[in-house]
């Protein structure tokens, strides 16, 4: 159960060009944006992985809940290793607060799980709401602001395979995060008490973490 950080076989691997680059250089702003995207998403998925780890530790004695948590957790592990790979291969600096994210996320997952299962589900609901919106924003920027990159062979602008792959990855992950959101609501997240305080606090924490992990 605890040995889960290895690279998994079902990873969406990025392809590599066979004959060198196919596209003109990205602008400094575009490069900076991609770096930011990969850094914050890696930190986010690390957080998600550890939140579920904490919840699982606190709630795995519940026979009905165990497979649900396990399923969501496994998807997060996959997300995390995908972004870990992107971070390593594109030479992106990971967030300097990584140790802090680890402790914070695991603590949040364990604490809400320790309260009761509704609180754990409210935590999932809050986190996935923020993440879903966050991924949508990234997709919007990747679609709108990367259309001016020329191909090297012909005078035409298009998305390189790299950008396409990143968009596809984010799209798939966003859908899975939103599935988790539905799962959380189906499992009585709205019955958590105090619902408003809990979800809004967690949303605030997530937004602050996103802001910081994008930058440092």
């Amino acid at each position, binding site marked *: 159960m*605890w040995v889960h950080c290895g690279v998994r076989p079902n990873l969406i691997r990025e392809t590599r060009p066979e004959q060198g*680059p196919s596209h003109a250089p*990205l602008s400094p702003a575009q490069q900076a944006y991609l770096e930011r995207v990969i850094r914050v998403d890696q930190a986010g998925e690390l957080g998600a992985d550890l939140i579920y780890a904490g919840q699982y530790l606190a709630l795995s004695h519940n026979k009905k809940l165990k497979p649900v948590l396990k399923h969501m957790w496994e998807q997060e592990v996959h997300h995390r290793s995908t972004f870990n790979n992107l971070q390593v291969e594109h*030479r992106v600096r990971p967030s300097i607060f990584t140790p802090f994210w680890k402790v914070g996320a695991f603590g949040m997952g364990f604490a809400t799980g320790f309260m009761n299962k509704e609180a754990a589900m409210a935590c999932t609901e809050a986190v996935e709401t923020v993440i879903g919106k966050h991924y949508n924003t990234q997709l919007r920027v990747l679609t709108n602001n990367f259309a001016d990159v020329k191909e090297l062979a012909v005078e035409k602008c298009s998305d390189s395979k790299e950008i396409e792959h990143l968009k596809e990855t984010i799209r798939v992950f966003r859908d899975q995060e939103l599935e988790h959101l539905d799962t959380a609501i189906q499992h009585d997240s709205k019955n958590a008490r105090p619902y408003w305080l809990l979800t809004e606090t967690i949303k605030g924490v997530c937004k602050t973490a996103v802001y910081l992990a994008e930058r440092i």
Partner: protein
Amino acid sequence: MTLRLFGKQASRSLAGSIRSYHSFYHVNPPILDLSTVENQVLDKAYEEYVPELGFTKEAVENASYAIGLNDNSANALFNFTSSSKDLEMELILFHLKKCRQDLEDFRKTETFQNEFKDKSETDKLRYLINKRLAMNQPVLKFLPKALGHMILPTNIAKSLAELHNLSDDITYYAGDKSTDFTWYSKRFSISGLFVQSELFMLTDTTKDLSDTAKFVDSRLQEIDTAGYVYNSVEEWLFFNAVSTVNIVKSQLARG
């Protein structure tokens, strides 16, 4: 308004010196862009005048004369385009960047790819660090003065940025896959190791720098051990924390 302009300029010069996102399908900007006039002057100076004159203003002025500019135009040129306005520092930075570019070109060669395919990360690190140190040999006698110039308050930020870029390059070429704080500790250790080795190299009297190589080796082993200790302690702590929770849970479940 002045402030904003200043900020923009600063961020532009930073964008040139800090290497960010590495792309596969897009052309990556080279470490050393030899298409600019400044770099052509510096290249000429570095190749032809530095071995004799060292990292000096004269070397740059001679070079700018040699490539057909007025021998005073180097001053004017760098006054407008470099943020340091310091010819000596620009020449030293050129040396640092050129060494990095050579290292990058080298690691793409088949020799490196084949020879080091199955070697460990530490082996690659050792090799690359020694390779980079050997690149100092042609300018070794001017290096103490250059180092002195690099740590002046006005220059230290740029020197450190280059040092960080170098250790980032070396760790990446060696196949580093760290995704958390290890990323930082590795690079800081390599930066420290490199500075220490470079200083050691200045007093090394052996011909083939074998003493420096030994020094690098012992420092790398220390770093390896430190990493091993840290990982073992972390693993032990985590295991015990989880066991404790599980013991508590089993006691509670017994009722």
